[in-house]
Every structure is written in C-alpha cells, then in structure tokens.
C-alpha cells in the first residue's frame, strides 16, 4: 500500500460471487414476485405465461428465496470472520461522519460547497444501500414465512397478520426494487461505471475520487499464529452453531407445512341422477274433473249449454251441414254426412274432430273441450 499501486483490490472473488449470487436471486425474486403482486396487469400475465404458469413461478420464487437465505448465512459468517478472526475494521457500520458526509454531498450538489465529501472504504451511499438491503431482507424473510406457512403462523399469531404480511411483502418488494433502480443502479452505472464488482479492482484515480480516506488506512495489525488458531477454532464453534440453527430453521421454513390439500375436495357428494319415478306420462284426466265440476257430465247439466253458445249459431235446425247442435236429439242424430256424436268414443266423434280443422269457425275453450270429451266418453247422455 505504501508503494501506491495503480490499482486496488476492492472486492475479492469470494465477495463478488456473494454479490452476484444475491443479485441474481434478488432479480429472480422480483421478476417472479411482482407479477403476482400486480396479477391483473397484461405484462404480468405475459411474464407468468413465459415462465411456465403461476405454479412454476411460485416454485422459482421459493427456490430463489432459499438461495437468498443461504447467502444470508454466508454473509453472517463472512462478517464474523472479518471482525473476530482477522480483527478487520467494521467499515460498514454507520456513524456520525456518514450523516455529515451526506449533508456535505447535498451542499456540494447544490453548489453551496466546492468540495465533495471525503469518504472511506464504504461511502454513505453504499451504507444506505447495504442497510436498506438488510432491513428489506429481514422484512421479506419474516413476511415470506407467513405467506409460505400461514397455518403455522396462525397457530401463534392472529390470522389477520397473514394478509398484513402479504401487504408488507408486496410493499417492501416494490420499495426494494425501486430503491435498487434509483439508488444502486444510478451510483454504479450512471454516475460512474464502476467495474470493481466485475473485476474486483478500482483504479487509484477512482479510489482518490470515491474513497480517499481508505487510501491512507493503516494495514491490519499482524496477528500471531497462536492467537489466530484459537480465534479460528472459536469462530467455527460459534458460527457453526449459528449456521446450523439457521439451516435447521430454513429446512423447517421450507418443509414444515402442507398449506392446503392438493386438490379441492368435492363440494357436495350428491347422486346426480335421481329421477322422480315413474317419469310422468301426460294423462288426459287433468282437466276432466274441472270440466265435470264446471259443466257436469250430461247435456242438461251444462254440456248442452256449450253447444248452444258455441255451435248453435250455425248448427241450428236446418242450418249448416244439416246439423242441429242446439238440441240433444239433433246432436245425436247427426247431419248431412252422418252422425256427429259417437257415444263412448270421443276420439272418433266428428263433432269433436271438426274442431281440429283449422278453418272451422267454431272454437271451444280448453275446459269446454274437456267437458265435451268427457260427456261423449261417458256415453253422451241427456241427463
């Protein structure tokens, strides 16, 4: 460092792998999650279709979530190693100087100051990004657990927390995605194209510009081997425990609950075909009783009155077709073409059949027809 090399190793390979694993899982989570939040948009529909349907989307989302959780275990281990074993500075912790740097940056941007803030290994912009990510991940993991395991959650907590978790999961997702675009992508792509997360290195010029204070940091103290061995042993015990708990929790998270039955059970077990037996066959007698009650079953009782009213205008003595329907004897004796009434056989009695000739002017009501049928069937008696 004292030789002022031309480039500085900012992110060793292992940190780049960590970043990109997280970036990819974050992107997949966003791409598979937002279409579910905004399910009614056409673009959501198209992207769900593209990813193979909603069930596939949900599986992808959950796989990406597990990857993110594993990155979390890794990151805690890395931070512990850096801080406890190597006694490295906790450069990501926010401090008073970050607030001052932010204020200075704003003054500089607005032209109130000629000097941009002089910042260390992590700028206040990067710290905002980092802690927003930590906050967001915690919120997403907790609310995601509620959504993944609603029945388990409702054993302990009120049921209303589950839809609330859904609201928070969606709100936080939107915030995270927009913050990444507005804040992170602006700073690493637009403001300057920062290659360090690809190559691992920053040029001296960039370091002077972005992280001048980091250039003058003393090298980490030399640790004697015996101490190092002891710390490493302690680290593996402690972190092993944390990681084991985390992993067991993750397995529980993923497998604890069969949220719902795979298929909706049939709503009702009903025999569909249950016919009323026997299938009713139309029977003629439906009006017979009513007709009998209204007109009786004899000429005198009322059937004669039907003929008198409906037929006798034409069929009077010496009238149409020589048929006299104004009196019982006339009706029974018939007309020019033979008998009109065949007692006992209404189906072949011409007086009845004539009514089916469409151009026959006389018409009977349904009840009157029934009465006439009834009367003939019963023998066409006078009284």
């Amino acid at each position: 460092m004292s030789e002022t090399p031309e480039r500085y190793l900012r992110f060793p390979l292992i940190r780049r792998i960590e970043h990109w694993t997280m970036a990819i899982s974050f992107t997949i989570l966003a791409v598979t999650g937002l279409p579910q939040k905004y399910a009614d948009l056409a673009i959501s529909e198209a992207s769900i279709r593209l990813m193979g349907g909603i069930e596939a989307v949900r599986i992808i989302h959950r796989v990406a979530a597990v990857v993110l959780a594993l990155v979390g275990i890794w990151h805690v281990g890395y931070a512990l190693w850096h801080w406890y074993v190597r006694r490295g500075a906790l450069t990501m912790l926010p401090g008073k100087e970050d607030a001052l740097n932010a204020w200075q940056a704003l003054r500089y941007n607005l032209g109130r100051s000629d000097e941009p803030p002089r910042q260390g290994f992590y700028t206040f912009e990067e710290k905002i990004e980092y802690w927003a990510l930590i906050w967001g991940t915690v919120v997403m993991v907790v609310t995601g657990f509620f959504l993944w395991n609603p029945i388990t959650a409702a054993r302990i907590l009120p049921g209303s927390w589950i839809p609330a978790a859904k609201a928070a999961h969606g709100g936080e997702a939107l915030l995270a995605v927009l913050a990444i675009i507005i804040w992170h992508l602006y700073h690493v792509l637009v403001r300057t194209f920062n290659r360090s997360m690809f190559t691992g290195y920053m040029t001296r010029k960039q370091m002077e510009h972005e992280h001048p204070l980091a250039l003058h940091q003393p090298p980490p103290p030399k640790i004697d081997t015996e101490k190092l061995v002891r710390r490493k042993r302690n680290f593996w015990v402690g972190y092993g425990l944390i990681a084991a708990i985390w992993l067991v929790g993750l397995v529980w998270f993923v497998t604890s609950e069969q949220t719902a039955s795979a298929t909706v059970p049939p709503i009702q077990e009903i025999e569909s075909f249950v016919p009323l037996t026997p299938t009713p066959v139309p029977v003629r007698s439906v009006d017979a009783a009513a007709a009998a009650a209204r007109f009786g079953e004899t000429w005198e009782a009322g059937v004669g009155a039907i003929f008198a009213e409906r037929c006798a205008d034409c069929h009077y003595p010496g009238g149409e077709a020589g048929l006299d329907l104004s009196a019982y004897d006339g009706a029974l004796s018939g007309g020019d073409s033979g008998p009109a009434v065949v007692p006992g056989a209404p189906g072949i009695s011409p007086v009845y059949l004539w009514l089916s000739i469409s151009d026959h002017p006389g018409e009977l009501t349904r009840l009157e027809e029934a009465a006439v049928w009834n009367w003939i069937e019963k023998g066409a008696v006078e009284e």
Partner: protein
Amino acid sequence: MRLFFKRLYFFPILLLAGFWLVQLAAAGPGGPETSSQPAPLLQTTPVPIDRVPMSDAACLECHADQNMVLPLPSGETVSLAVDRILFRSSVHGRLGYACVQCHTDINGFPHPDRDFQEARDITIYMSQVCGDCHEGPLEEYADGEHALFIEEGNKESAACADCHGAHTTEQFSASRTAIPKACQQCHSEIYDIYADSVHGDALFEEFNVDVPTCVDCHNHHGNEGPAVQGFHLFSPQVCAQCHADEALMARYDINTRVFDTFVADFHGTTVSIFERVAPDQETNKAVCIDCHGVHNIKSPDNVESTVFKQNILVTCQRCHPDATPNFPDSWLRHYDPDPQNNTLVFAVDLFYKIFIPATLAIMGVFVVTDFWRSRIRKS
C-alpha cells in the same frame, strides 16, 4: 258414418299412400326400414301448415283411442294415445301446428317401420325433429353434457321432450318455477337441496324472479356441470353475473365488491391468473362455491351457512386440514381494507403508501442533485 270419412279423407290418403309406396320403391331392397343403424337426422324443413300431408283429424282417428299402445322389444309398452285437449293447450297446439309437422316421417298409413328397441329410443329420436325448426337450441344441446351422455350410450340422459314435454310443450318463460321442476324429474336430490337454499327459497316462497334457477348457472341447452373442464375454474364469473351487478344487488343490500375482493385475496388472485394463463388446468384454490356451497348456498347470516361465523373454520379445514381457530381471520371476508375492517392490513398499506414515496423522494433528491452537479461541472 263411414261415408263421412271417405268423402273427406279418402282421396288425400290414397294419394299420400301412393307417394309413400313410390318412396319405398325408390329406397330399393333393404331400404331404411331394414337398416339396423339409428334413423338419420331428419333434414326436412317444417311443412307449411297449408300443405301438411294429412290433418290431425286423420291421426286422431286412431290415436284418440286412449288405450292404444305400442309394444316394444324391451317389453315396455308405449302409449300412442294423443290427448288433443292437452296438445291444443300446449304452445304448439295454440299456434295451430299439425301432428305431422313434428312427426315428419309419417305421411299416411301404414306408418314406416322403426326399429325402436325401448321407449327411450323414441324420445331420443324425436329430439332430432325439434331441430328442424329449433336449429340453434339443438346445436347448443349437442354440445351439452346431456347430449354427450346420450352419445356415449346413456339413454337416461335428457332429450328435448324430457324437459320441454312432447305434446304438452310449453315455453319456460311462462313460469320460472317450471325450470327447476323440469330438472327435478331426473335430479330430484339436487332439486331438494336447491329448493332449501337462499336462491330456491326465494324462488318458491317469494316468487322472486331475480334468483338464479338451474339453467342460469348450468346453461340450458348446452348444459354443463362440474365434470366439464373449466366449469369450476370459471364459476366465479357465473356468480359475478348477478353478484357484481350494482342495480340488482342494491335491492337485497348485498355487497357487490364480493368478486373484486375475491380476486384481490389469496384464492382469487391465483384463480384469476389460472383463468387467463392456464384455462385448461384445474387449480386447488377455492372459488365461491367451495366456501359458500353450491346448490345449498345460504345467506352468510344463516346459521346453516358454511360461511356463518361459527362454521367457517370447518369450511376452511376442507382444504386446509390443519387450520386452527385463528386461521379464518387470514381471509379478508370480502372487505376492502379500511380502518374498521382489516385494520392491520389497512395500517400496513398506509405505512408503505407513506414510506415508499418518502424513501424514494429522499433518494431522488440526492440522485437528481448529484446528476445535476456532475453535468454542471463537466460543462
């Protein structure tokens, strides 16, 4: 008496019998009568009333005999009696249609032989005749489940006359209660359940014309049920036809947001995605009828309702067997989140409504000013 008939009908009958003999001869040896195939779909158009080959009176010469029956190979006997009074009072009778306008294959005596084995064969065969005039309904019917069952050889399945009657055909528009009663003939168990539901009760007890009958959900001619693919998935749309109708629901003070709130909640979001992305797949997510019931739908205020407060856990457990008493509260009960209903969701939504713009605004101030300054400095 004989003279009377001869004078009226002898000539046309002779003429038509002659026609029939000519047709028979043209059919050649092994004509249609000897074929074991089902009779072909009739292609004739209805004969105009003034050109019917024979009048009803000729038919009634024989068919007025109430004891006239046709024995069938199955051992059944089918009544061949026609009740003229009943026919005259049916919609076709009132309009003056003649027998042979439906019985188009009969134009004299003797009638052509038919190889009907059982009574159902006749009813099913006659459906084709209805299509001569009612072409659209018959086409719809052909796509429905009843016709499909018949095609598969299930002769119990309904043909036209099973619902509409034969000589007693009446328009269903004349009476809404006639619709479930027509279905009841075969589906009596479902009918009993329906009659006891909130819909059936209103129909039969209050003569309410707004409530759905069988055909409003299952369609009439092109009828479909749960065995039809997509019936379950798309069923919320069926319910929404009425339950999202502001004017209709206002009469009964029923929340019209039920459909939208369903779509916004867990089950409905997935169902609506399936409807659009994978309409040919079934989902295990609940639709309206899975919670509210189907034929047995009751008002949620009714203690017998599956969604009555004390019953809802049991309803949830049908799909979520491990659900505990807290679990039903995870459902927003068709309420949009507001301070009174779903307070916690409302609070979370409100928090993010403030937190997201506030955070982005602060970030935006830094980003915009930084961008501005870097451009200024460059220029």
